[in-house]
């Protein structure tokens, strides 16, 4: 269905979990939620073909989708959790430092804010080595990359893909491998990466200049802070944070391969 199903190799991860060829996931009969959000599970502006199901991460999102006029939401849990479940054992190497995700938009959006001030605040807060993970378009911007390289290691998990082109099917695996090397995961916004990091065993933190996107709906950002104060700050309680994060990712709701195949329309595949 929508090419967003292939973002970050989500469809590939689910195909692998279902025992199908992860390199060539069959067409999904509906829309996969491809990032954590506080709306109906679909990204803003996703063209929606009426009558098709949305496969959302959490029961909370399903309820919200219903209230927003999207009654066909089914809770599957985040593909990242399926990866955690089907992936190998965590590396025995000791975790060290912080993986820090500066807030980003997507390709068509521009973030406004002071990267210098943010980096100073991060350096003052973090005690260990810092890995900055930049979104691919910022990673390609030499000016921005150079700023962060002065304060730590700079990486990029890959390109999420667009219109099924240049999709990096190993995106989530790369991200998981990096997360498992770090003790902390942090960002200036509560975001998908912080959730993934927490699920992968990192202690989360959300602090620093939140920065803003062009034409961003700032009340939504404020709403997120009000709704999850337990996840904000330089050192939230890790146990509480983990419990909240796992619920947001749909832990406990993951389907068996057979059920998932039938749900996604892959039963005959």
């Amino acid at each position, binding site marked *: 269905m929508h090419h967003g199903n292939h973002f970050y190799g989500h469809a590939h991860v689910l195909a692998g979990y279902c025992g199908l060829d992860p390199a060539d996931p069959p067409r999904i009969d509906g829309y996969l939620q491809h990032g954590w959000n506080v709306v109906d599970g679909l990204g803003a502006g996703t*063209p929606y073909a009426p*009558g098709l199901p949305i496969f959302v991460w959490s029961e909370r999102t399903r309820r919200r989708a219903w209230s927003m006029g999207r009654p066909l939401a089914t*809770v599957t849990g985040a593909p990242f959790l399926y990866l955690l479940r089907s992936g190998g054992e965590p590396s025995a190497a000791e975790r060290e430092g912080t993986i820090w995700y500066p807030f980003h938009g997507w390709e068509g959006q521009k973030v406004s804010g002071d990267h210098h001030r943010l980096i100073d605040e991060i350096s003052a807060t973090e005690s260990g080595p810092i890995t900055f993970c930049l979104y691919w378009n910022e990673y390609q911007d030499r000016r921005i990359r150079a700023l962060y390289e002065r304060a730590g290691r700079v990486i990029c998990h890959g390109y999420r893909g667009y219109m099924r082109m240049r999709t990096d099917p190993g995106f989530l695996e790369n991200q998981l491998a990096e997360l498992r090397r770090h003790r902390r995961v942090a960002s200036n916004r509560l975001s998908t990466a912080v959730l993934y990091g927490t699920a992968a065993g990192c202690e989360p933190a959300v602090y620093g200049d939140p920065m803003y996107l062009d034409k961003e709906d700032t009340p939504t950002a404020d709403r997120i802070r009000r709704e999850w104060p337990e996840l904000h700050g330089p050192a939230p309680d890790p146990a509480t944070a983990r419990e909240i994060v796992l619920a947001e990712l749909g832990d406990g709701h993951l389907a068996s391969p057979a*059920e998932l195949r*039938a749900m996604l329309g892959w039963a005959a595949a």
Partner: protein
Amino acid sequence: MITMLGGEMPEYAEEHAPAGGPLYRHLLERLPTGIRVLIAGPHDTDLIGALADRRDVTCLVRSQPDAEALPGNVLCGTLSKLTDADRYDVVVALDGTGRLCSPEGPQLDWAESVRVLRRALRPGGTLLLTVENELGVHRLVDPHAPTASRTGDAWRPLGEFGTAPGRPDRLAAALGAEGLPVAAMAAAWPLPGRPTLLINPETLRYGPLDALAAFASAAVAPAYDQVLSDPRRLAAAAVRRGLGAEMAPAWLAVAQRAHRPGPTITLPPAVFAGPSGTVTEIVGMPDGTWLRRVVSSCVVPLSPGPGDSGTTQPGLAHGPVAAGVTQPGSSHGPLPAGRLLEERLLGAALAHDLPYLRRLLTGWMTALPMVPADNVLVDGDRFTVLDPTVPDQPDALARLAHTLLTGGYHHPWPGVTDVPRLIAVLAGAAGLTEVPAAPDDPLPAPDGRREHEEQLDALRRRLADAEARSRFFEVELEKREAELGRAKTQIAAFSGNLGFRAAKAGLVLARAARNRLRKGRS
């Protein structure tokens, strides 16, 4: 021998089935032998035959053709013509008082009818009377109003405008006021004339309500042809919420004329008849637990239809197993605890509680894969068959899929709208490795108007979605076609002949020059 009382109906045969069924038969067989019994109103010949075994039985009916088809002593006429010349030890009126008066003479109301029946009793005699509840489940789900009936006996279709008591306690008070103190009472499902479940009102207050609700649901499930809404949910919810006695289709009262000990029957806390006619009692134990025991196991033929002249000789055919004889198997022993699995599954589906729903499905398919969810009690992780006399069904999971979709229930997979695919999803959720086949024939389920409305709404929604989706794809297709057209032009430009490429390059240059000019102007 027929005695004509007066007021009889020479041309009319009763159109609706007479009172009968295995449960009434079971109760009547417990009456002492050697007594005189008056059976007032239309009763099944099987029931009359069972009573006539070593008892002196007289029937009272208003229809002459029906009277002529009955064996033994028959009084034919309208109730007001019954005199107290003959007195009986027991008067059986399991059909109620609604079919005792003919069009001739006074039209007795409920209390007047009871008075006539009372006069027919010897002091200490017993009246077995069924009273229909006009607000019973059977009425609430009935698409047809009794007040609009066009049948030949509906010359005065009072329905809920009648005078019969409307609650079990008021019924007891009314009978008491007529000098007929009530010795025992039971609420009856699914139909007044042919109950398969009787429960004492006290038991409905303090008994094992979840299990009793499951029995009520099972009793009403196959009983009504067309319904306004699924009677299973209404009957079960009423019992669970403490309104079982008030919403039962009827009440059976055992009343005695004066307080002198006479022939009577006791009613157990609950008693039900399975589909094969096996009668099972539920009794309370001193330690507060409940026991079920099979008390009679017999094959009861279908009741004769209107005008059926079948006769059964007393003491012949299918003699019941004596009371107290037990059947092997789990029908006998402690009443399993827990709530009906089907209700738990529907509850979990409505609450979108996927983890619990999967746990229920997995536990069910592991423990009792061939038993439909409407015959399983679940208590924590324990799954028990509710009525072991009900035969297994190989398509138990398919039945659930059917119930979820045709019942209009919300469930966690709203995008799945066809039964085979929902079966596949449920099988996956239940941890089954193989998907059961979808049944070819539609599964039996109450044919509810409300469910029809839901199905119609669902189809309208799906049609609207499909039309919108078709427009959506049309727009997408146009976009893709435009992209393809551009791509084809580009391919032609790079692979075409030199002249075409030169012309194309010229076009590009011209377009760029135009754009520069425009920019310069703005």
